[in-house]
Structure formats: structure tokens, C-alpha cells
């Protein structure tokens, strides 16, 4: 793990080149090599994803039984993200008839968990071919609920959220098989995650995009305390322009409610972005607190694995922000803001 001193040094780099040279003596050295060979910043994103997949696979290899299954289920999140990326490209190319050029080359094309022929999806002439490519994966049945017309008219947003929910459902199923102590830890973490991600969706889509109650209900991740609660039902029942995120979280996360009730600095549509960012930061801080407690607690449970993933993910996010920040010339504060 990179220490704060190293992060500060990276932050002080004047350009993307300087940043990458500073990464040469860290586990992120392959990024510097990739840039040296291509001069292409987008390759770095691909390298980071590759690193993340390799890390998950390494951890899974050290475990066995239900614990290994859990790490594999967590790895599926990466697979879903990759799948969403490929589907977006496929949609642009095949449905919208746009040129996707070399962009497929940046996506991960090896096996993550399921055996998926990524090139079959990207080159699929129609949605049926996409379904065929994913028939033997857990995503097949979910994808089958959509049809070509739906995709053509509404885009892949619905598909993406369905895939997220599918992954979450599979993860919950795997958690149920774990020994009771590990199960408790996972359920606590997942419930808080579920609640806050649902809140983000309710703010973003219920407030900004003003989706109807049924559409919003369909977006919700299973579990957590907010989904199905009285506050949730009241939120859905309220007119979209009058919906209040503060009321939604007041009971479960009073601190967050206080933050959300503070006057946003932004105006207009940016208010939603600012409120969403507040929830995301709260979620990050909450996770950080949970995982630090896990690291200081009993060491022989799944908490250590989760904390490791969290720390590693946080670090990757920092590196990703640094790479983008240095490339686009952001200041240090903005970079740190994106990293948390």
C-alpha cells in the first residue's frame, strides 16, 4: 500500500509523465510501462482494471470453500462493470450506428469469472446474439427480460441497473452460505451499502429525473433498512419535485440527514450532483470506519479480506484520480475530491 508521504509526492507531480515516473517503484509500475509504450492515458485505466481483476483472483486462490465463493462473487462486480462497458459500446455501434473505432481494445477481454466471449457481444448484429453469448452465465436470464425494441427505445440504462441488481442478488445468496460470524459482518456492510446506494438512486432518479414510483421501486437493490420503509413509501408517494432526501435518511443516518439539509453551494441541476456527492462521501467515510474497525478487530474472519479489498480499491481510485487529474490539469483538491 502507498503511504501518505508517497501520495503527497504523487500529488505534487507536475504532469502525467512525472506522476508515472514516480509510480515506477510502486506496485503500479506496469502503468508507467504501459504509458511508455503507448503514450495513451486510456490504456492506464485498462491496466488498473486488469490489476484489480488479478488481485481478486489472487485472493480467491488463497481461500477455499464458501470464502472463495464469496471472493468470486465480489469479483463478479468487475465482470458486470466490464459487461456494462461492452454493452454500451455494442449499443453505440449496432443500435445507434456510431463508430466505436478502437475503443473495444481498452476493455478487458479475458475471462473474469464466467466464460464470456466478449468479441461475440461487441460484434453481435442483434440483441439475440448478445443473449446467446451470455446464455450460460448468471446474467443470461436477467438480460432475457429485455428485448430489442426496449433496448432500442430506452437505451441500456435499464439493462445496466438490472445487471447491478443481479450481481447484488447473487452476492447476497453467496453470503447466506457463509459461517454465521462472517455472514453477520457481510450483512452489516452490505445493508449499509444497499441503503446508501438506494438513497443515491432515489435522489438522482427520483428527484432529478423525476421517475415514477414504480420505475424507482424497480431500481432498488434488495436488503437494507430503507427499501420498503415508511419513509421510502412516503418518498415515492410524494410529487417528484417535492421529494425530500433528508426525510428519507433522517431515521437511519441522522448525520447524513444533517449534511443533506445544509444549503448546497451549487444551484440548478448541480444541486442534485452535490447532494449525490455528499451521500457518496458519507458512504465512503462509513465504509472506511467499518473497515478500519475490522482491521483492528479479530483477524481471522472475512472482515480482513473485505478491508483489504476496500483499501486496495481506495488506492486504485486515488491513482485513477491522479492519472486523470494530471492529464486534465486538475488541482490537488479536485483530485482528492474524486478519490474519496
Amino acid at each position: 500500500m502507498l503511504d501518505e508521504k508517497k501520495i503527497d509526492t504523487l500529488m505534487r507531480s507536475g504532469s502525467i509523465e512525472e506522476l508515472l515516473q514516480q509510480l515506477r517503484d510502486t506496485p503500479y509500475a506496469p502503468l508507467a510501462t504501459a504509458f511508455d509504450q503507448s503514450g495513451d492515458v486510456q490504456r492506464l485505466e485498462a491496466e488498473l482494471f486488469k490489476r484489480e481483476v488479478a488481485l481478486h483472483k489472487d485472493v480467491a486462490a488463497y481461500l477455499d470453500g464458501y470464502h472463495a465463493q464469496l471472493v468470486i462473487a465480489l469479483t463478479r462486480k468487475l465482470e458486470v462493470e466490464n459487461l456494462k462497458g461492452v454493452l454500451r459500446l455494442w449499443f453505440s455501434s449496432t443500435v445507434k450506428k456510431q463508430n466505436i473505432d478502437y475503443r473495444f481494445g481498452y476493455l478487458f477481454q479475458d475471462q473474469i469469472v464466467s466464460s464470456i466471449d466478449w468479441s461475440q457481444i461487441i460484434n453481435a448484429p442483434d440483441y439475440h446474439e448478445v443473449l446467446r453469448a451470455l446464455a450460460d452465465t448468471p446474467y443470461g436470464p436477467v438480460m432475457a427480460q429485455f428485448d430489442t425494441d426496449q433496448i432500442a427505445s430506452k437505451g441500456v440504462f435499464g439493462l445496466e441497473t438490472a445487471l447491478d441488481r443481479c450481481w447484488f442478488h447473487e452476492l447476497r445468496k453467496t453470503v447466506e452460505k457463509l459461517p454465521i460470524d462472517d455472514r453477520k459482518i457481510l450483512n452489516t456492510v452490505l445493508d449499509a451499502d444497499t441503503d446508501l446506494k438506494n438513497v443515491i438512486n432515489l435522489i438522482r432518479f427520483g428527484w432529478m429525473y423525476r421517475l415514477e414510483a414504480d420505475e424507482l421501486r424497480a431500481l432498488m437493490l434488495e436488503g437494507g433498512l430503507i427499501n420498503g420503509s415508511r419513509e421510502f413509501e412516503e418518498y415515492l408517494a410524494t410529487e417528484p419535485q417535492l421529494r425530500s432526501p433528508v426525510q428519507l435518511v433522517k431515521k437511519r443516518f441522522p448525520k447524513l440527514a444533517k449534511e443533506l439539509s445544509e444549503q448546497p453551494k451549487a444551484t440548478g441541476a448541480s444541486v442534485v450532483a452535490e447532494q449525490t456527492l455528499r451521500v457518496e462521501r458519507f458512504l465512503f467515510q462509513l465504509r472506511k470506519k467499518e473497515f478500519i474497525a475490522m482491521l483492528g478487530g479479530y483477524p481471522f474472519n472475512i472482515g480482513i479480506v473485505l478491508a483489504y479489498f476496500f483499501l486496495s480499491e481506495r488506492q486504485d481510485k486515488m491513482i485513477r484520480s491522479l492519472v486523470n487529474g494530471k492529464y486534465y490539469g486538475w488541482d490537488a483538491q479536485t483530485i482528492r475530491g474524486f478519490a474519496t
Partner: protein
Amino acid sequence: MNLFTVPMKLLTAVVLESKTEAVVQELLRLGVLDFIHVEKLAPDQAARLLVKTEISDRSTILDTRMRIEALYRQAGFSVPGSRLLNIDALQDYEIAAYNRQLDQITNALQLIREKQKSISQALIRVDELLQYCREEKLQYLDIRVGSIEHGEAQTLDSRLAPYAHLILDDSPDDGAVVLTLRRDASQVTPLLDKFGWVESVQVAKQKQALKRLIAGLEKQQSSLSENLEQVKLQITDRIKKEEAPLEAMWCNLRLHELIGEIESNFSHTRNTTIFSGWVPQESQRLLEEAVKTASEGECIIEWIDAQQMPRSEVPVATREIPVLSPFQRMVDNYSTPEYGSINPTPFIAVSYMAMFGLMFGDAGQGLVILLLGVLGLRHFSKRKGQLQQGGMITENLCKLFVYLGSASIIAGILFGSYFGYEWFPPLWFNYHAAVMGTGHASGAVQDVYDILKITIWFGIIIIGCGLVLNWINLFIKKDYFHLLLDKNGIVGGWLFGCGVWGAFSFVASGYKKLPEGRFLPLAFGIPIFILLFKVPIHHYLKVKEGHVLAHKSIGSFIMDSVLEWVVDMLEIFSGFLANTLSFMRVAGLGIAHVSLMAAFFEMNELVGGGIAGLVVTLIGNALVIALEGLSAGIQALRLNYYEFFTKYFTGKGLSYNPVALHPHAGRQVRI
């Protein structure tokens, strides 16, 4: 060879403000002063002194230097390094001008990078096409054979540039071939129509097209890869072109950075500069003359002897013993010795080699390690002066190989082992015969029990040496309390000696009885009884020295004394026993070494000797050298750190770190 740390002196100097610059340069040139803030010496005067802080300047210098270093690394060059620093070449600097120059280079590189990026993206397109062609995933491809009726192939090529494609129009007989991705068909087909594309009806040409395309794509792939390599070279060349100015900038910035570091330790009055720091006693006169010369005599210098300062505040320097540098690194990795104590380096050198030899006694395999070390040193001597960044193989490691190889050779001659064979009779005893019980063992060492006995005696000697070194350190520190009553003091050592005597007498009696008479009970009883008074004596001495201690009732005081006594007893008896028995690992590793060799000999016989046998023996020896050598090295280090150092090396010293042009290797000084 001085066995103790280097004596130090504390300098405090006052120079006129106008002479400060010259003095700073001289201090940097000499590089022997480990600065401390004057305020630390005279806290009551601190408020009257001014401290100039120009941290932002130093930070800007550092950032600019890092920019230069990033360019060096991009080109794959080593960063200039301190060997190029010359204080006489010091010049004023203008960060803005430096940064402008660096911006120019960076912008030029940026243009090259853009080119590199587009080549890299073109390569992605070609890779995808080639992959589908090779895997015959023709359903993803549109292969068209025919001719262009309107316009040139070159024009079509440029119009197809945003899509993955290949046009082959080099053979008039075979016609033109256009390869694109089927997913791009909706955009590509209208384009081809505009160029009046006419599809060929000849099936043979269609069949041949795939082979031609694979060849064409491979050619394009290799050409793009070559282009990428050339771009990389262009980047290197562009930076190399600027190497001289970059080097000059780097050196000047580094000098200013060091000057800033020195000045950050200065305090000021209105017209004077005051500074203070530690210097090895041998450099006292040299430094004094340098300050006087630089300030043209307008200075006041005061020297304070290290003995007048608290020992814990005096930085520790040890005299450099170049031949023992690998062992010095082992000491540095552990910690810094206390000021005025024994330098552990020569002692770890002897004990480490002895331990390694006992665990890995084979003259043939030792020779291999020695040769590896010599080859490594030759490699390093060829690259002398160049900075070696990272990497596990260092010059010190090669030197260590030479030492360990030599130790192994000597031990191998003593044990009569040459690649596991007894080519010459042993000078001491046959280790292999003693372990395998083959009947060739001679002298006092007949079996593994005798080997175990040797290593236990070896451990006793090492622990004994550690205790004696500790007593010398404590005597020099005038810490008579710990010298007498500490578990590693004289009482602890006495109990250890009596324990050894008692244990060996018990073994000599065939594990039947302890030595008879009153000596043993008294030898144990008296020191144990004395240790009961350790806490009260300590308390008395502290009060006598003027320390104010927390008030305790008689009951809790007695309780404390008894508890500490119990802990001491446990530590002395179980600690020394565990420390001594820990040395049995030396025998363990030695026995494992022999057993492994024996296993490979048996495998040699199983394959019927000959060339196959020779291969087995070679692989066996290589594995033993790699695995056993590593194990023996690690175990010897562990024994030194945990069984030897813990007896006398507190590691509480403060490292001597002077500000110098050329950084010192840790806390060693070459005077």
C-alpha cells in the same frame, strides 16, 4: 581498529551575517556537521533568535528537481547523483527560467506522445482484425474482393481511417481486397459505393483473400510496432539532447537544496548567524579552520565535549571498515548502537561466518558461492560510478557471497566435504559420516548427538561473548547497577555459567545426578537472593540521584519487588535456556544439508550413474546451494539478531547524519 563508536564534539559558532554564505559553502564542502537547532541548546534564549523559514523556496526547488528526474527516468537514464555535485560550480538560479526550459522539453515530448498514441490506437485496430482473421471468425469481418471504379485506393484508405480496415491493392491480377469489421458495415458500405466498388465474382480470389489479409495485417502490425519503438527512441533522443543543461540544472538545484537544508538549521540575531552541530572529534580542527577562513576570522567558535551532554542526544558514528561493509549493513538494518558503546560490526562478521560455515560446510559448494560473489563484484567494478537503482543483487551482497563462500570452504575442509563427496580426509571430523552413521566417523564426533553438543557449546560461547560485551558497554557507561544486577549483567552471567556447568555435569553423569556438595545450591541461591533486592536498590539509587518517585506504600513496594524478582527469574532461567537451545538449529541445518546431499546421491544411484547421474548430482548441488544457502544465511542472521545482539546491543543510539554533498553510507565515517 577502534572497536568503539567515534568520539564526537559539539560545535557552536557565531559568524557575521555578511559571511554566512561563504561559511555555508564551506560547511557543505566539508560535509561533517550534523546540525542541531541552537534553540535546543539554549531554550531560554530561543525567543530572542530569529529563524528564517523559506520552506516554499525549498519546496519549489524540490519540485523542479523532481521534474528533471522524471525526464531522466522517461529516457531510462540514471538520475545524475551526488557524484556530480561541485560546490565551486554553484550558481544563482531562477526557477521560472528553469521551468520554462523544462516546459519546452515537455511540450516537445507531448507532441511525440500524441504521435505515439495514434500509432498505439492504430495497433489496437490491426490487432482486432488480425485476431478475427487468425481465429477465422469471419462472421465479424467483411472481406471484399473486387476493384475501385471511381477514385484511388489511397483516397479510400484515408476515408476509412476512422475504422479498423485494411486495403490490399498490390496485385492487379488478384484485384483489390478491402477488409473491415462487419459491425462498421452501415458506415463503410455507403463509402465503398461512392468509390464505385465492384465485387469480384471469382471464387478463387475470394478464397485467397484471407491468406493475403493475414500476411498484410502481420506486416502492418510489425510496422506499427517498429514505429512505436522508434517513437520511444525519439523520446530518449529528445531528452538526451538536453542532457547537459538538465544535468547542470539538477546539480545547481541540488546544491541549493542542500544549502537550504543547512540554513534551515541557522538562527539569527540582527547581524549574526548562529549554528550548532555534532562533528567527529577527528574533524574538529578541520572544521574550525574552515569556518575561520570562510568568515575571515570574524567568528566565535565554542566546542563542547560529548561527555558534557546527555548520552542519548549525541549522534553515533562508527568508523568505516570497508572490507566488512556487508556486515555493517546487517548492523544498520538492526539499529544504531549507543554512543560510546562497542561497534558490533567486527563481532557479527566473525559469528555470522562461523554460523554459516557450521550450517553449510562444503568446500565445493562454498567455492561456487565464492565465485558467484567474485563475478558479481567484477560486474559492479565495471559499472563503477553508476547509480544502481533498486534490484536485489547489490555490491554488498556479492561481497557477502565472497565471505560466506570462504567460510563454507574452510568448514568443508574441516569436515572433508567437497560437493558432498569426501575427496580429501577431514581435518576435524567427517560430518557426512557422523550424520549418516556410515562408520567412517572418527575422533570425538561420532554421531548427530556429538554435532548437537558442538553447536550447543558454540551457542554458549556466542552468548558468553555477548554478555562480556554488554559488561564492557555498561562499565564504560558507568551503569554499575545494570552491570551487576541486570539479567544480562554479572549476576545473570553468573547464573548462566552455573546453569551450563550444572547441565553438563548432569549429562556427564548419564542424566542421573547433579553435582554434589554445597557449591551449586550456593552458586544459584546467593545471586537469586541478591536479585530480590534489585527493586529496592534501584529505588534507593534513583532517590539518591535526586529523582522524585511516586509514593508507594510498603506493601505495594514489597509486592513490586517480588513480582519483578519472579519475572527476572523466569527471564533468566527460561531465557538463557531458550537462547542456548536455539543454537541447535545450527546442527539442524547442517544435518539437513548432509541429508539432502545423501538423497541426491541415492537418486544418482537409482538412475544408474553415468550422464543421468551427473545431471542429478549437478541439479542436487544447485538446489542445495540455493535453498540450503538461503536457509543458512537467514538462520545465521536470526541467531545474531535475537541471541547475540539482544545481549549487548540496545539499539538506542541516534544516527549521525551530516549535511554533505555526498551522502554518507549510514552513520559510518571515513576519516
